[in-house]
């Protein structure tokens, strides 16, 4: 037994060197002041306007895109899986969701700039054909709303992917049984389908939240770093001292890790609850 532990040594050595130690550096740094003494002041300083604002904006964007992406993704997944559409559409949407949930930051941001940016074709179309001047009315893609529209592009397909097994798990017999007992469609959803789906729906949305919360590339590519998100602020701190305090940067990163940890824990707890119905 003792000897066989050597077999997993390379794996743990690698993970320690390139994941655990780098993260520990940030943990240790976040509890130190500039002179190197122990302090929790860095965490208290997170309530300063700049950093508190970054958390609020990050959480807001993640919440909005998780809930909207969750609902729309569920509707799309339900439509192609259980909505009476021909099977090829299901295969098509599922494959495309696998692709689109992986569309990475920079090209995605650019695609939206070319579409609903100031000279994007939809913007131009609305302006010249319908006479609607979106940018004149204050909209800009480089804003919170713009970023939310872009994030939805990977949030929605991710929802389709992770909610699909739960929709598959809704048994026909449950619906038939409820109809035989005289339940309406509304009653079926309120009393049977939604309660069963709820852990999966919530869990998936929590995963979407984490997905948006940790995103940096899309926001950076889209706004050039002019939107105050936690990831953008950490990036700014990395390339130059925007906070004026290295240790505050470490605390900022740790706050992010803490939120991600809670997210993942909540997800795995809900996923275990959801499994009860998927046997």
């Amino acid at each position, binding site marked *: 037994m003792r000897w066989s532990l050597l077999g997993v040594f390379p794996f743990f050595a690698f993970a320690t060197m390139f994941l655990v130690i780098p993260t520990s550096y940030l943990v240790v740094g976040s509890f130190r002041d500039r002179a190197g003494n122990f302090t929790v002041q860095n965490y208290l300083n997170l309530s300063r306007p700049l950093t508190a604002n970054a958390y609020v904006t990050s959480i807001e964007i993640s919440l909005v895109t998780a809930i909207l992406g969750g609902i729309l993704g569920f509707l799309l997944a339900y*439509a192609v899986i259980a909505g009476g559409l021909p099977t090829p559409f299901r295969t098509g949407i599922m*494959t495309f969701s696998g692709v689109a949930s992986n569309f990475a930051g920079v090209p995605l941001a650019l695609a939206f700039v070319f579409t609903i940016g100031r000279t994007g074709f939809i913007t131009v179309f609305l302006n010249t054909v319908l006479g609607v001047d979106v940018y004149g009315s204050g909209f800009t893609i480089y804003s919170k709303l713009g970023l939310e529209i872009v994030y939805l592009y990977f949030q929605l397909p991710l929802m389709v992917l992770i909610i699909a097994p739960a929709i598959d798990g809704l048994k026909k017999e449950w619906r038939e049984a409820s109809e035989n007992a005289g339940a309406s469609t509304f009653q079926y959803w309120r009393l049977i389908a939604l309660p069963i789906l709820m852990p999966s729906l919530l869990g998936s949305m929590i995963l979407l939240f984490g*997905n948006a919360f940790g995103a940096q590339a899309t926001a950076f590519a889209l706004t050039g770093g002019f939107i105050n998100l936690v990831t953008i602020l950490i990036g700014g701190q990395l*390339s130059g001292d925007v906070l004026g305090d290295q240790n505050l940067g470490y605390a900022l990163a740790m706050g992010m*890790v803490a939120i991600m940890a809670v997210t993942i824990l909540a997800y795995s707890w809900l996923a275990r609850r959801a499994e009860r119905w998927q046997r």
Partner: protein
Amino acid sequence: MTGQTDRLQAELDRPTSWPDRPARRGAPRKTVASWLFLLLGVVYFALPLVGTLIFSLRAKPMLSAWTDMLNDPQVWSTLGYSFVIGLITIIVSIVLLVPTAFWVRLRLPRLRPIVEFVTLLPFVVPPIVLVFGLITTFSRPPLPLTGTNLGSDVLLVCAYVILSLPYMYRAVDAGLRTIDIRTLTEACQSLGAGWFTILWRVILPNLRVSILSGAFLTLAIVVGEFTIANFLARPMFATYLQLIYGNLAYQPAAVALISFGITWGAMGVIALIGRGSQDKSEIGGAH
């Protein structure tokens, strides 16, 4: 009298199917709604791609954005660099994870929860935090890797191995679950094979399919990755795209479409490999 028979006839002619079965009435409405959602989804997903294509064709002469891109040596060098980094990442992942997952299943099943926990840590530490930690750690002695290009390349590959850990490990472990490694190993040992021979000539070939799907997902993630490459100042494809977006008008649109095409290609290969298998490991991304 005739009135009676007419009524009887009408009663018999009456379509008997729907008024008696109100439950069925919902079905067509539901299908219409499904078509509507599908249509809206397709439009939303198609628009940015169409927009990018239109934008790339706005250059004058019409195809110049595409010919400029094809003639831009840096597009090819950054693309080549990204693919090489992706390949090295995949090889390092396989060398690191296949023996580990194999060994844990064979000899150390009690360590499995710990190993799985470690492979899930990258979900908790987002790329921006990971690169923050890596730069903080490796920009000073004893291992000042960020000081040289080679050192930064090493760091980049290691960061991507960490990033792909959840997908790669799950892919390998799922593959191991489908084969009887205990019997295979005993058979090999009774024929006199050493551990290297067992892994290289028996276990690895049996894991081909599951490793390939993990590998292509890793490739898709690495080629599109921006955050870590940007802060390590590596000439990756995504950082180059960001660079020319600031300097050129139409060419970035063509390059962005190429980038989407690569993701399509990689995921298409996974779909082909994994047809029929219930592997849901394609959930990933570097946003």
